[in-house]
């Protein structure tokens, strides 16, 4: 397998797409399943904040002296692609399952990029780790919602 090396710009753009699509996903969920509307909209809001936060950290730390073009070795962004389109007529429990999978992939992505970016200034891997942690918390909340949804059936 080729030892892929991504630019920081490519990784940050991926973060933007990931958080945007996640936010849209939760907004749709909130519209369809109004029972947990507030929580789901909270996740969407948090995702938009994650994007802003990671982008800002990148823009404020990047420097011509850092290994921005060579930092992310061995990553294939295709491996972190997630499904964010809800199937027509999907149940709340199915939707939450999908959300949990999405969060698992996102956490995996953030932990991997945090590991890869150790050669950048410490604030960049720290930003990725912080988002991984937030999304870990979110995954636990989703699992709890899922358990309730299943029990309610």
């Amino acid at each position, binding site marked *: 397998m080729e030892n892929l090396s991504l*630019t920081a*710009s*490519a990784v940050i753009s991926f973060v933007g797409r990931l958080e945007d699509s996640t936010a849209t996903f939760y907004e749709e969920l909130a519209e369809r399943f109004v029972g947990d509307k507030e929580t789901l909209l909270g996740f969407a809001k948090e995702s938009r904040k994650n994007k802003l936060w990671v982008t800002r950290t990148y*823009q404020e730390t990047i420097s*011509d002296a850092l290994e*921005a*073009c060579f930092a992310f070795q061995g990553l294939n962004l295709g491996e972190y692609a997630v499904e964010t389109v809800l199937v027509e007529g999907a149940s709340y429990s199915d939707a939450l399952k999908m959300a949990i999978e999405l969060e698992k992939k996102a956490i995996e992505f953030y932990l991997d990029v945090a590991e890869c970016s150790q050669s950048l200034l410490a604030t960049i891997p720290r930003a990725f780790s912080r988002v991984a942690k937030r999304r870990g918390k979110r995954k636990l909340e989703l699992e709890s919602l899922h358990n309730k949804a299943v029990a309610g059936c």
Partner: protein
Amino acid sequence: MPILEEPIKETLKLKNYVDGEWVASQGEVKDVVNPATGKVIAKVPISTKDEINAAVEAAKDAFPDWRRTPPVARGRCLFRLRDLMEQHFEELSRVQTMEHGKTIDESRGETRRGIENVEVAGGIPSLMMGCSLEDIAAGIDEYLIRQPLGVFGIIGPFNFPFMVPLWFAPYAVATGNCIIVKPSSEDPISQIKITELADEAGIPPGVWNLVNGGRTVVSGMLDHPDIKGMCFVGSTPVGRDVVYTRCGETGKRVIAQCGAKNFVLVMPDANLGRTVAACMTSFFGNTGQRCLSGANLVVVGEGLNEREYAAFYEKVVDAFVDAASRIRIGCGLDEAVQMGPLRDEGKKERVLGYIEKGIKEGAKLRLDGRNVTIIGDWPDTCFLGPTVFEDVTPEMTIGTEEIFGPVASVMRARSLDEAIEMIHSNPFGNAASIFTANGKWAREFQYRVECGNIGINIGIVAPMAFFPFSGMKNSFFGALHGQGREVVRFFTESKVVIQRWF
């Protein structure tokens, strides 16, 4: 991967900015070409002597009022400029990629470095403070104040079209001086954008001027009696033989930051993975077109026997060549790209000449950048791949002269002493780096090496805005350096007052 949107949609017709107005030049016009696409993105005037004289006159007229403006108010202008730069961060970065060719990550890094200088200069009330001492004799006090001098000229290089003039301009303006910036005519658009923002930030007419052009503008500044000092970043022959010499003759202050041939030492205990990643940025970042680029990679066998050294050498060179061979080359607005083109065809020809010379002088061509594969359908006019030579000695042309392109020369040294000797035998003294886990070696290196910027496990030793950008030997001419407190001293005269009251 998609190409980022270009901020320049149609050919720009660039003007000069003098006394708060954008004015058309009467000089001839030159094309500004995007080196990746070959498209003309702007037309830049080569201004006349009368036009530079008019700019000096405007700056001189603006000086008395500007120097009376309180430092805190001048600093606020710079903070507004900083905010505007942040708002336009992405546009400013993409413009650099379009006019220079560097990757978008590199451009954003350059934008950040430039903004940091504006931020630091915004703190001018503290930076410019003098000092005082009571009772130097009974009832007599003495104090030092720093005063601006007047008009300064700033000549920017092509390799960092956004950042380098900002090593000087914000500090000059913050200290109460007025400036004329002459950007490189090869990529002047970034400075045009900065000047537009300086205008928007409320910097008064005549304080910050921009005159496009070439030698006529440079000579006009060097010879003008109302210009108090010059800041130059560029090649050693021009910096030393023209700018520094002429400033000496005309009594001007001068900062001339010039060429380089930087050595990067890899010690046996270095973290190889991290070292190689750092070396890729160092040797091939900005397509090797920077005065802090690594040029000579010295594999040092300190403490190893012959067999161990041979194995260590092979391991380092194999990893270096392997990583270099994987670098993706193309248009800098493509986020997959790790290295852009050289700035123009002439610069590529020059680098090709050095590659030929290296082969002729007997160096072993381990990776040939002439066989370049480009991502995307771009003309190969300015593209060149990473090139690695082995068995280079300090006497060879490619081991001594500044190539200013993506060419690495690998050298052997059996000991740290021998490696330091190699550095000292080179006429330049800009930067040198050591990769090691050994504090004693690192300390020895930092202590002995005659270079202005020293890296310890750092491939690009670019000082932050609050530190001076140093340089020694043929890499620097002058006394005080750009950035931070040193440049504040450069732009001010120290006046001492001794007072007593009867």
